[in-house]
């Protein structure tokens, strides 16, 4: 075992983790841990843009962005946080430009902006051009730019280290993490005053997903096991346009640039459901429109997909503004988007829920928002909540730069004001026991069997449309799979680069995420945003204008409610 001491440890080197690291670099002794190399992080897969009310191409105001975020989230958004998101987005985007991010430009040299789902002018009148972008690889340019800044500021990277535990003192103060160095199998204890979890999402719990294979919820499952609550886990976003069967994302920018969804009759069906915003209605709604079309027999060839039609777009728009996603259609489906429509279906994309935090990234333990000292989260692993029941396109990138930055700044203050807490005795014990149990098991169930069964049931029963009976079935199934997991067995017993072991550990994390999603979904007897139940079709503000906190306790799983913060915008029916 190796021991290291730092002021702060950041777990996850995507946009949120790196943004935090840059605030601390040079001012504190920090480490950034990633199970990948940082530029491989899933922030790099984001395509369409990052919204900020710069007003570079038409009138825009942060208040409009805040309103759209609140309405898009079906009023479950904490409005104090949404205000910070919309206000600070402007400065955060400019900071990215100053760091060197190569945004597309307007003819007069400013950052260009385009339309995106749910982003409107003057509180819903019509689409507004708010998304700043770098072709359709905005996330790629963010992760590259932030990694470059990390190199410039000599950030201490622990590349290819896998998170196996988060450490707390007996008084509940966070005091470090334990990692497994992937190359050697050695355990490392990183003792620190503050820890930031920025490990992203867990889309891999579903069968069809846009998420990387690395998106397995490591950083949120571990604290959940230790009694930290998870918030709003039932809100999981299905992006309307994943490549058929593969789930690979085709950005909403395709529709922002004029692309249209069509059913088997060639009808542009979104206009029927959302007369004002049409194809640019929020994602939860468009995914349900597609579901409804398929259910009513208007899927293409009667199957479970529809078409994304880009054939009417000028060639230069496709080549200059959507090059990557059209390349995906060519590479993986053999479809030329300039000439033929692209088969698409909704794909599991983004977790609105996660570790509950305040607006400074501090993870909180209860409905009174009591912070856990030294423990932070930002980005997709966190739930601030700025996305409420449904995130708007581009707001994930805004979230990770704005709240990654705020978390980093707060951590700097925290580590200056606090001393290093003691480590628990034998800090690596719990992680070592878990790893040794898997490595020493001679025979049992292969991880793939459990994983595929989990992904199937989550897709069938816990995706775009849900009901109480299906959720109960899913819960029973996941409980059974968790029992199976106790006898999971792998082939590779070595220490060197044992990804067989890591995949087994990731499966354990995902089962916990799946459990929390289902518990939240069963508790929430209403339909709101991405959580749509056919047995409770209406939004119920009287009982459910509240966040859920899911706790694992010694007495079983508990669900508690946390009030929503409402400042400027009273909840209304959501129409587009």
């Amino acid at each position, binding site marked *: 075992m190796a021991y290291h001491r730092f002021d702060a440890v950041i777990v996850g080197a995507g946009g949120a983790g790196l943004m935090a690291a840059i605030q601390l670099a040079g001012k504190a002794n920090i480490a950034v841990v990633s199970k*990948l190399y940082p530029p491989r992080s899933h922030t790099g897969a984001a395509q369409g843009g990052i919204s900020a009310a710069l007003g570079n191409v038409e009138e825009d105001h942060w208040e409009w962005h805040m309103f759209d975020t609140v309405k898009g989230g079906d009023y479950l958004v904490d409005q104090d946080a949404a205000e910070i998101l919309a206000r600070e987005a402007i400065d955060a985007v*400019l900071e990215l430009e100053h760091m*060197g991010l190569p945004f597309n430009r*307007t003819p007069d040299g400013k950052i260009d902006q385009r339309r995106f789902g749910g982003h409107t002018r003057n509180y819903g009148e019509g689409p507004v051009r708010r998304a700043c972008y770098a072709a359709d690889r905005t996330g790629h340019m963010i992760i590259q730019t932030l990694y470059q800044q990390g190199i410039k500021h000599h950030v201490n990277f622990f590349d290819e280290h896998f998170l196996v535990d988060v450490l707390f003192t007996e008084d509940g103060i966070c005091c470090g993490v334990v990692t497994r160095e992937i190359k050697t199998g050695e355990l490392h204890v990183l003792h620190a005053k503050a820890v930031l979890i920025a490990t992203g999402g867990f889309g891999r719990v579903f069968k069809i997903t846009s998420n990387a294979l*690395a998106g397995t919820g490591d950083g949120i499952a571990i604290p959940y096991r230790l009694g930290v609550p998870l918030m709003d886990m039932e809100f999981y976003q299905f992006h309307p346009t994943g490549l058929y069967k593969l789930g*690979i994302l085709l950005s909403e920018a395709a529709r922002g640039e004029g692309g249209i969804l069509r059913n088997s009759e060639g009808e542009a069906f979104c206009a029927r459901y959302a007369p004002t915003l049409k194809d640019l209605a929020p994602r939860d709604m468009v995914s349900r429109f597609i579901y409804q079309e398929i259910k009513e027999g208007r899927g293409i060839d009667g199957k479970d997909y529809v078409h994304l039609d880009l054939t009417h777009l000028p060639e230069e728009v496709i080549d200059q503004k959507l090059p990557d996603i059209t390349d995906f259609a060519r590479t993986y489906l053999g479809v030329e988007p300039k000439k033929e429509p692209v088969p698409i279906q909704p794909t599991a994309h983004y977790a609105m829920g996660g570790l509950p935090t305040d607006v400074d990234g501090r993870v909180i333990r209860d409905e009174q928002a009591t912070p856990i000292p030294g423990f932070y989260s930002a980005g997709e692993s966190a739930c601030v909540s700025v996305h409420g029941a449904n995130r708007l396109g581009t707001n994930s990138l805004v979230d990770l730069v704005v709240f990654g930055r705020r978390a980093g700044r707060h951590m700097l203050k925290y580590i200056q004001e606090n001393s290093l807490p003691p480590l628990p005795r034998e800090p690596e014990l719990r992680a070592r026991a878990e790893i040794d149990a898997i490595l020493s098991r001679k025979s049992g169930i292969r991880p793939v069997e459990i994983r595929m069964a989990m992904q199937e049931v989550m897709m069938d029963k816990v995706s775009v449309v849900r009901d109480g009976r299906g959720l109960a079935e899913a819960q029973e199934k996941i409980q059974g799979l968790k029992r199976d997991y106790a006898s999971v067995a792998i082939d590779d017993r*070595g220490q060197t680069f044992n990804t067989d072991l890591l995949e087994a550990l990731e499966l354990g994390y995902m089962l916990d995420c799946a459990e929390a999603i289902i518990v939240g979904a069963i508790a929430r007897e209403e339909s709101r945003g991405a959580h749509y139940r056919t047995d409770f079709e209406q939004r119920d503000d009287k009982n459910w204008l509240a966040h859920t906190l899911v706790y694992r306790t010694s007495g079983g799983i508990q669900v508690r409610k946390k009030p929503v913060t409402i400042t400027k915008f009273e909840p209304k029916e959501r129409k587009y």
Partner: protein
Amino acid sequence: MQVTLRIKRFNPDVPEFQKPTYREYQVEVEPNDRLLDALNKVKWHHDGTLTYRRSCAHGICGSDAMRVNGRNRLACKVLMSELGTKVTVEPLIGFPVIKDLIVDMEPFFEGYKSVKPYLIADDAPSAGERLQSPEERARYDDTTKCILCASCTSSCPITWTNKEFVGPAAIVNAHRFIFDSRDQGAAERLRILNQRSGVWRCRTVFNCTDACPRGIEVTKAIEEVKRALLFDEVQ
């Protein structure tokens, strides 16, 4: 369709594979499965010890570059239908092998870091963005696409024997800043690339351009850096 994957194995923990050894696996695949899907089938269903890096599975994270039928490819960006029924899979060459298809990427990232791959500029305006025309932005667009997968660097025969050479990927990333109108570090980077380890080691073999899964014109970028050095100007 039934395919045979002939995979070069090496594993310091297992006596059988302590010397690099080819091992064959038969798997059933769909023609439009990715090679990564086929590797996953082997690992998940037949032999969990088979080891490779992977993450995004659609060609943008750069994890799974490997040598496929003699060419550097991303396993997630090549379909089985392109590869025939017998596919040879080997680790990238020119880097030390850690295990199976995993190579030590540290030398690659050291080369990348050596060219100062970050914007060097001290003139950020106090309000608003720096201005850059669409034409100025287009000048370096191609080299912003790099995903640091090492396909180009590993395909370059110079890097196989000359461990000093920074390699094509590092030059691509230097190019990305040298030709960015906002950057003020061109002279510094050109000085680095004018050294023995720099662009003059390039023999214009074009392997790098062929290997790039992002379609970057790597050789052209290298030539542009050479020209900037020869004619003492950045155009």
